[in-house]
């Protein structure tokens, strides 16, 4: 069942590739604006790199969250998903996984490339990749709760940012912290472990919260 939901969402995303690409372009452009604006001051760029890349990743994932349930809600397929003979948590998990693959994985893959603009060492770029790989599932998981809560509301886009961005702060701190540690020449392991732990906690709790929020939104 999980397979079908993921497959369905991936196929839908493929049919509307433009949506997916716009998220990636947004990320690349926002990250690239900083080196262009600041100029070739390597030391400064290295210092701001972790924060800039991570904040851009948070904002880019906000862009795609609105679509997580909204399209299905408007054409009535979401209520059909609620009425399938399988736990709603599983449906939510499938949709969140698909969202991660569609919206976050491209960012994770492209981040080391855009990171080059900040004069990061090869090792640091790997840490950046690892921190995003561990951290972006948190963004999808927590974001899905916000997306479900703001479903069908007018101006849901702004509301979702207000709801979700504060909850992203731990991911931002530890994700950017890992990269920063690596720039300083220290071990990033502690930050990455905490990020991983946070991802597991998000995985354990957010699908239930999202499922409950969806039931309320669809009443």
């Amino acid at each position: 069942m999980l397979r079908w939901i993921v497959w369905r969402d991936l196929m839908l995303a493929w049919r509307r590739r433009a949506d997916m690409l716009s998220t990636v372009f947004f990320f690349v452009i926002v990250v690239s604006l900083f080196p262009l604006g600041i100029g070739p001051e390597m030391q400064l760029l290295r210092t701001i790199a972790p924060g800039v890349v991570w904040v851009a990743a948070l904002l880019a994932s906000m862009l795609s969250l609105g679509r997580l349930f909204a399209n299905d809600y408007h054409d009535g397929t979401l209520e059909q998903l609620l009425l399938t003979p399988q736990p709603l948590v599983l449906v939510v998990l499938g949709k969140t996984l698909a969202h991660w693959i569609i919206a976050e994985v491209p960012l994770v893959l492209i981040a080391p490339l855009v990171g080059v603009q900040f004069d990061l060492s090869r090792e640091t770029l790997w840490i950046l990749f690892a921190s995003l790989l561990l951290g972006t599932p948190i963004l999808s998981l927590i974001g899905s709760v916000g997306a479900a809560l703001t479903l069908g509301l007018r101006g849901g886009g702004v509301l979702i940012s207000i709801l979700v961005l504060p909850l992203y702060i731990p991911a931002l701190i530890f994700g950017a912290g890992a990269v920063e540690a690596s720039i300083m020449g220290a071990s990033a392991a502690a930050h990455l472990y905490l990020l991983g732990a946070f991802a597991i906690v998000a995985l354990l709790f957010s699908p239930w919260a999202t499922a409950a929020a969806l039931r309320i939104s669809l009443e």
Partner: protein
Amino acid sequence: MLQSGRRTTSILEVSKLGCVRGDRRLFSGLDLSVSPGTFVQVTGPNGSGKTSLLRILCGLLAPAEGQVTWNGANIRSLAEEYYTSVTYLGHRHGVKDELSAIENLRISNALNGVAVSKKRAHEVLGQMGLAGRESLPARLLSEGQRRRVGLARLLVCNTKLWLLDEVLTSLDKGAVALVRSLIENHLAGGGIAIVATHQELELAAGRTKRLELTT
């Protein structure tokens, strides 16, 4: 609840159901018992709570009071188990614009645990009058054709309870006749159909109950 004589056991029981939307009470104290092979036509003016009633019956909406039981168990506690016996078609089609008719049909059924082969899906869509348009993205279909794609699910699902909300909107005469025969077959097989509609749906066979909601 075995009853002697000609009457059969009712498997869907609605007792003292009340519904409140916002600060308006749509209906209260609604009782209904439905036995296999029964067609229930829910009528009433706009805003009388037909859609809300169907959404309560399928468990999307929690009733303000009263309860709905299926085979003696409250549907709120049955949860997913209940959905193996229910097909609900709302007034939104539940058809994805980006997917073709055949993909829509196969995916929505797969998610309901019913695998539909490509061949079978072609047959079903042909029966629904969509032959030759199976592979077009649904956004290129007309409103009525999209409705037919949604209705095609009724031909492959093997659920006992059908809840159909305004499914006759934007359908032509032929399609209405098709839906009527689908429901007749369903009732003959011991199924239940609860239909909210403004159009009269005269069935040749089966028991028909009328439920009139007022504002």
